[in-house]
């Protein structure tokens, strides 16, 4: 057997996992891996301009494609800069594998070794233990193939999530005998459980007898590729479908039975109908506080069926009547089969009428094409301007909640946002990752000026690497969401929310070699979006909006969904 270096073993193992793209930034302790990447024509390395963005790019790639995203960084600050991106992927159950360099685990210079506080040493294993599904630190070259296989397996199966492999520098450069293998070693890891048939039958009975059932479709539906089954279930039961924020796109929001997202900034029809439902079928959701608001009034008239692949999510936040642990698609298929025998519903039932009425009353669509250049109108117009297959990411804050309320997502994996961690600066790098995964689809980031500034340096990455995306900056010169909270909940005592001199985003884009456009009317906005879609270079569209606009409707903290304030 011939000996190869640890870095070579790493790249060969990544190739076996069909990795074609790595987002990363190099540094001293990862140089052997970069040396091996030099001349490798199977894996494209995309140079991010900040490690946090490399992780977000990997996540954007993963969420748009359903494949594992890979990011790479050096030891110490390179590794710690990945942390926010890893935590984001953990909260949103996104499959990424993070590779980090580490100072040597052994060698001749014993002062430059793990545990001696060497230059650029950080305990990234310790730091990421609570925000990864698992992490590894190989100590020999021979371990690398099995570790890589296992990392990809753990990241992508069950409830997906991030996995980190920390590579001591000596292990990267050492020569060792390596066996090509598909071996996976994770004896305590269970990705699948057997679905409890008695629970399926209990759930089917509840649903068959329901007079006003509602389906809550979460991010798990997207991950499990179960949108078709949700659609069939909705058709069969004539049940309205609400999504969680993470589930946005799992059910087409133009469908007559779509009632939009529930939650703190949920669609009023969704929040109201949830209170009226007698049976709730919640699939692939963890009942986050932003979705449920106060638990005492959450779907309080409904018997609750909770389907999730992560058993620990059952009963964690809310008590349910029928828990079903399992993959969303598999469970829904079984439920559909069980229901088909029991159920024949007519289309004209009272609940379907009520859903239509609630939507018309509470969430009316704009009848005329909007003229005013306000977020609601812009986002409704944006949907009209984009092809069905467009992918939209968002930043975090008002831009995100306006998008949740008014931008209709049509397909799974086409709306990508930082749901759990709420990471400002996520959307732009995520859009770059999504564009790499889906180069033939338009990708747009709906941004605020505050968030975009947090990762604008990735303009250099998108221009240099020829990854054209569009950033729509809803520019209000203020950290809008916290300003809104200060306005509504802290008597308008503004503190540290005004951004003062924000950059001229047109010039900023141009400084990086991107295209910058400023729009001050709906006509200009339409023109700019069309221009951006045809552009071969990244486009930043600066849209100045008023600085005192609130995102409403809004459920104040501590209140329940029925206490939603403000009109849609």
């Amino acid at each position, binding site marked *: 057997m011939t000996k190869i270096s640890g870095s070579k073993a790493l790249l060969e193992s990544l190739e076996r996992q069909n990795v074609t793209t790595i987002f990363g930034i190099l540094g001293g302790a990862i140089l052997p891996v970069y040396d091996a990447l030099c001349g490798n024509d199977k894996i494209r390395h995309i140079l991010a301009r900040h490690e946090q963005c490399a992780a977000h790019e990997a996540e954007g790639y993963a969420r748009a494609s359903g494949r594992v995203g890979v990011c790479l960084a050096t030891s110490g600050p390179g590794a710690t800069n990945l942390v926010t991106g890893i935590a984001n992927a953990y909260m949103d159950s996104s499959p990424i594998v993070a590779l980090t360099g580490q100072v040597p685990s052994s060698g001749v210079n014993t002062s430059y070794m793990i545990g001696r506080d060497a230059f650029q040493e950080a305990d990234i*294993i*310790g730091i990421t*233990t*609570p925000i990864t*599904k*698992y992490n590894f630190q190989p100590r020999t070259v021979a371990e690398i193939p099995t570790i890589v296989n296992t990392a990809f397996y*753990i990241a992508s199966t069950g409830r997906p999530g991030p996995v980190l492999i920390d590579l001591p520098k000596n292990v990267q450069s050492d020569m060792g005998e390596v066996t090509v293998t598909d071996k996976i070693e*994770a*004896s*305590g*890891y269970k990705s699948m459980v057997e679905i409890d048939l008695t629970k399926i039958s209990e759930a089917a009975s509840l649903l068959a007898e329901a007079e006003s059932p509602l389906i809550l479709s979460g991010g798990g539906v997207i991950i499990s590729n179960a949108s078709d089954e949700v659609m069939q279930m909705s058709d069969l039961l004539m049940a309205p479908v609400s999504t969680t924020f993470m589930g946005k796109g799992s059910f087409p929001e133009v469908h007559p039975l779509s009632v939009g997202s529930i939650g703190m900034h949920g669609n009023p029809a969704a929040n109201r109908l949830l209170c009226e439902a007698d049976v709730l079928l919640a699939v692939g959701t963890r009942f986050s506080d932003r979705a449920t608001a106060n638990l005492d009034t959450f779907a309080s008239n409904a018997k609750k069926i909770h389907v999730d692949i*992560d*058993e*620990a999510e*059952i*009963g*964690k936040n809310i008590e349910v009547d029928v828990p079903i642990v399992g993959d969303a698609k598999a469970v829904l298929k079984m439920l559909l089969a069980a229901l088909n025998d029991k159920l024949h519903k007519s289309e004209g039932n009272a609940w379907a009428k009520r859903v239509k009425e609630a939507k018309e009353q509470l969430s009316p669509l704009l009848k005329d094409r909007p003229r005013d250049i306000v977020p609601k109108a812009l986002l409704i117009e944006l949907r009209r301007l984009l092809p069905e297959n467009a992918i939209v990411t968002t930043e975090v804050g008002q831009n995100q909640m306006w998008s949740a309320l008014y931008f209709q997502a049509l397909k799974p994996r086409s709306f990508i946002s930082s749901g759990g961690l709420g990471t400002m600066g996520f959307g732009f790098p995520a859009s770059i990752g999504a564009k790499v995964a889906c180069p033939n689809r338009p990708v747009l980031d709906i941004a605020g000026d505050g968030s975009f500034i947090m990762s604008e340096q990735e303009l250099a990455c998108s221009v240099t690497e020829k990854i054209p995306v569009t950033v729509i900056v809803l520019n209000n010169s203020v950290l809008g969401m916290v300003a809104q909270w200060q306005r509504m909940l802290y008597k308008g005592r503004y503190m540290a929310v005004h951004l003062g001199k924000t950059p001229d985003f047109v010039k900023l884009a141009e400084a990086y070699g991107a295209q910058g456009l400023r729009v001050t009317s709906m006509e200009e906005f339409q023109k700019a979006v069309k221009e951006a879609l045809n552009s071969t270079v990244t486009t930043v569209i600066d849209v100045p909006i008023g600085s005192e606009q609130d995102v409403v409707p809004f459920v104040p903290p501590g209140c329940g969904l029925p206490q939603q304030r403000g009109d849609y």
Partner: protein
Amino acid sequence: MEAGKTKIISVLVENKPGVLYGVSNLFRRRNFNIESITVGPSVRKDVARMTITVNEDEKTIIQVVKQVAKLVDVLKVDELESGHFVMRELALIKVQSPTPKERSDIINCVDVFRGRIIDVSIDSLMVEITGTPDKIDAFLNMMKATGVIELARTGITALGRGAKSIRIDE
């Protein structure tokens, strides 16, 4: 320690570095209180057994067990069923014994508690005592008057009785 509320969780884990950190860190991060944690090898060399004592309500315990079960290095985890397990703790207690009278009082007391004197010096004795935490507490209470110089307790270790076992087949 409120005996009624104390629950014992037995966890079989991969016997490798970082596993104790992973488990204990999970408790901290999820806001579960650990009263004691003991770790040692199990029947299988590559598997270690952790015994974790937790003072939480039943709902929280269920969540603890589910969260621990998710850890990749955890092979098996369950709560020991109330009334169907045996638990023991070991304590080493160094007590003052400046006079022969005190010394003989202590020795008598150690006999009653079925402990052992394992080290003697001019003015102190070291006692080894094994039993339930309550028994050790009671013995310590008896020693208060004489004065305890140093105390080391292992924390609880426990096993299910008879067929009530948490084990991994060879």
